[in-house]
């Protein structure tokens, strides 16, 4: 067996891990005018977490992809620098004798997320657990949804949260993973049948109904409930994941076309039926119509983008608060991209998008190299999920698509989002590890 030094990973992690304390220091100097070591504590903690994760992978001779961890570390680093710079009372944790501000809480969740990632990347030796129990996973997903529906509570009109004593979780973030696992297992099994479709309506070919139906039913339930929970962003994301995986499994553009037609029709119906959909679309089309009311948040976000310009206002020098309130409400979750683009400019925005693209395209590479259909589809679903989520929320920030309340993976504040995103990276690492092992065994 070859040695697994993971030199590429280390080589890429080092500059990332130097930049995070540097970013903290620059922010602190900009805000307070003096350099102090104390405020760097969180940055050092962040560096330590990623170094530890790297060392654990080395110790277990992990053969998984070496670009994912540095890319995720850089994304998370940009997020941490910004979260540390925002008012710390926006969010936080108190309990167990601790009283943590927002950035410290986020760091805690990075720790939990990295542990989850390592456990999966190392512990998941084969895919049986995921593959063979797909209906159990579907049941888990439905349970999560029903639980949210019954005992969930609302924040800003969307019922997304379940209160578990000391922490609240967003089941939707984990449901996303369950959905991907189920779809991968189901599509891997039925994709030959789905591909040999011979039903045609006009120029559109329709998959054979008996094979398609269970998936469609599950999907309808998910969509219906996502709409019922008033979580349009998650609904849109799930739909995108579904179409993407269907496309890769069957190679049929017509399925995607049908899906898009359904989506347009469904959006139109939703627009006509639901007041909140209507108002959100109207705000999207013309936020400046009511810049102090319904359009307040998006308009303020566009102003922040404009202030950023090409080079940004500099770390710590953005206009985060105004008149005792936040310039952009929910800047730490929905608009973290805007905050980064304000202080680091369009160049910073490119960097962030580029890092996200690295994660997505490494994920797709893992899919392309995977040795079986299930692994390939799983990797596709995971990368598409991370990619689409990034595109939907950043597109919402830039008024490209209507604004939704989903998080920017690894960057936005939020424990569920961070942990779920790391679980997804863990799965990708595990797939690529098995691919590498398989290649070794196949080699003469």
């Amino acid at each position, binding site marked *: 067996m070859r040695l697994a030094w993971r030199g590429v990973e280390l080589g890429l992690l080092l500059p990332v891990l130097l930049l995070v304390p540097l970013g903290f220091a620059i922010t602190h100097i900009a805000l307070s005018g003096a350099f102090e070591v104390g405020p760097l504590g969180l940055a050092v903690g962040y560096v330590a977490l990623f170094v530890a994760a790297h060392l654990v992978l080395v110790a277990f001779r992990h053969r998984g992809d070496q670009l994912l961890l540095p890319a995720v570390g850089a994304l998370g680093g940009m997020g941490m620098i910004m979260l540390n710079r925002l008012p710390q009372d926006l969010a936080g944790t108190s309990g167990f004798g601790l009283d943590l501000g927002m950035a410290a809480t986020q760091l805690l969740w990075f720790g939990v997320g990295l542990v989850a990632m390592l456990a999966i990347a190392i512990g998941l030796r084969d895919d049986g657990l995921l593959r063979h129990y797909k209906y159990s996973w579907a049941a888990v997903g439905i349970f999560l949804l029903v639980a949210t529906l019954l005992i969930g509570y609302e924040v800003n009109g969307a019922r997304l949260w379940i209160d578990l004593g000391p922490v609240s979780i967003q089941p939707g973030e984990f449901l996303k993973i369950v959905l991907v696992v189920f779809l991968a297992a189901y599509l891997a099994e039925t994709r030959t049948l789905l591909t040999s479709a011979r039903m045609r309506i006009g120029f559109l070919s329709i998959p054979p109904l008996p094979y398609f139906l269970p998936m469609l039913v599950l999907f309808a339930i998910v969509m219906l409930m996502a709409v019922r929970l008033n979580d349009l962003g998650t609904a849109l994301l799930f739909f995108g994941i579904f179409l993407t995986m269907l496309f890769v499994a069957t*190679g049929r553009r017509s399925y995607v076309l049908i899906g898009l037609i359904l989506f347009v029709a469904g959006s139109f119906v939703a627009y006509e039926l639901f007041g909140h959909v209507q108002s959100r679309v109207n705000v999207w089309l013309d936020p400046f119509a009511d810049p102090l009311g319904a359009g307040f948040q998006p308009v303020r976000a566009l102003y922040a983008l*404009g202030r950023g310009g090409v080079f940004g206002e500099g770390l710590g020098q953005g*206009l985060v608060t*105004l008149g005792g309130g936040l310039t952009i409400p929910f800047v730490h979750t929905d608009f973290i991209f805007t905050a980064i*683009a304000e202080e680091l400019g369009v160049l910073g925005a490119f960097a962030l998008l580029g890092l996200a693209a690295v994660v997505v395209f490494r994920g797709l590479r893992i899919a392309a190299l995977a040795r079986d*259909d299930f692994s390939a589809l799983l990797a596709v679903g995971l990368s598409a999920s991370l*990619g689409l989520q990034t*595109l939907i929320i950043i597109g919402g920030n830039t008024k490209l698509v209507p604004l939704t309340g989903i998080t920017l993976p690894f960057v936005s504040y939020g424990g569920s989002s961070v942990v779920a995103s790391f679980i997804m990276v863990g799965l990708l690492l595990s797939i690529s590890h098995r691919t590498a092992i398989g290649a070794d065994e196949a080699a003469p």
Partner: protein
Amino acid sequence: MIATNVRRLGFYLMLAFGVVSASAVWWQVLEAPSLAARPDNPEVLAARRSLPRGTIFDATGQVLASSEVVDGLSRRTYTDQAFTHVIGYASLRFGTTGIERAYEDILVGQTDPNPIRDLVDEILDREPEPRDLTLTIDRRLQDFAADQLGGDRGAVVALDPSSGRILAMVSSPSYDATAISGDPAAAQEPMDALRNDPSEPLLPRDRLGLYVPGSILKVFTAAAGLDAGVITPETTFPDQPRQETEGFVVDGFTILEHDLGGIAPGLWRLSEALQVSSNIFFAHVGLEIGQERFLDYARRFGFCSDSVIGSPARPLAVRASLVTQPVDGDCGPFADDVELASASFGQGSTQVTPVQMALVAATIAGDGVAPAPYVVHDVRAHSDDGSPSDEVLETFSSTGGTRVVSAETARAVRSGMLDAVNGELGRLFAGQGDITLYGITNDRSAGKTGTAQLGGEQAPHSWFIGFAPAQDGVTPTIAVAVLVESGGSGSGRAAPIGGQVMAEWLRMSGAAGG
């Protein structure tokens, strides 16, 4: 085969990342200059938070609004709640309204045509010099008018018919703008209370409130009828005396007279019709004018479109007054002759602002010329000592009026309005608008009351428009419109306020002029 599909997916995702990156470039690079130029941009707000702001004085040099910089933040203090709806507020938390908004660049001393970029750049180098404003309003008349409303929901608008100079502009109820403009942390609570107050204290009723006018609109109908030549001051309608009791059937709908209070119907001319406020007479006039021409005159008088007080570049907005159902912000066509006949006596689909009705009164008082109203008199160098500087930088004056109807028409309507207040029949309805009741002996006032029926159980709006002095051969110096929401009859509530405000002004200006 999956690998091929993955590559295709990769291509599409690459495209999507490209599009999203382009959208960031769009806002951060291409649109950034135009975003920076918008007045509600927080960058601009933030920059102005710390700038000293000019003082606003009344016409006699008394301080109405002043600023001081506390802990690096500019805080505004307002001395007189009667002016809140004219001046507005300059809040660190809620932005600006009223004159504070329209004249913001002057108040903070940044009058560059493209102020925003300059402002942000220049703050670093030099402090802009604030400028002071003097209003056309004498605080004494403003306070007097506000006292007359006594906190009831309503508005008083008074102006000089010759120049358009606003003499008083009160919307009630008012509120304490200092509470919103002071400490930003303490501003939210009073703002929430104001927003939730059912009497809508944040609404400038004088400019932005729309109300059914009732009989005060007959002044407009009379002017339009005379000017179009469809009536003369001597015109009578033979069926009118009978219809006063039986009703006037238009297109199968019966128009009824209001309660004449026991006055026996006669064959009335314009003067009597204005005195007793005959709905039947004016329905006839309106039908003679016809739908098209009625709308045409309405537009000439300034109805049917949004307008401004002051220059369009620094506007205090006035909502469009309407005589029909609106279509795209303009008066739509009349649905039928019933709507036209009803509009002729101020019912139907008519809805007007107090400012617009004050302008109607001013147009009659001004021999048929509608003045362009303005409320800021001049800009001066900043003064810290509580009295205006002598260094006047810019003076705003009348921009000239617009002829709406002939002088002959205006004088005939004026004569009718004089009768409505002083005539034998008129005294019974609009007599409370007579300035001789309030200590003026040498002059006479003209006017018209309105009792706007709202349907259902709602008490009618009480209206009065008028001007003084109105006797022959004298140029009126004040035209006024008074609205009291659900104040009952025009004669009971609005007319005495109108009469008192006019009398007070004549006393004040008489004293001032020696």
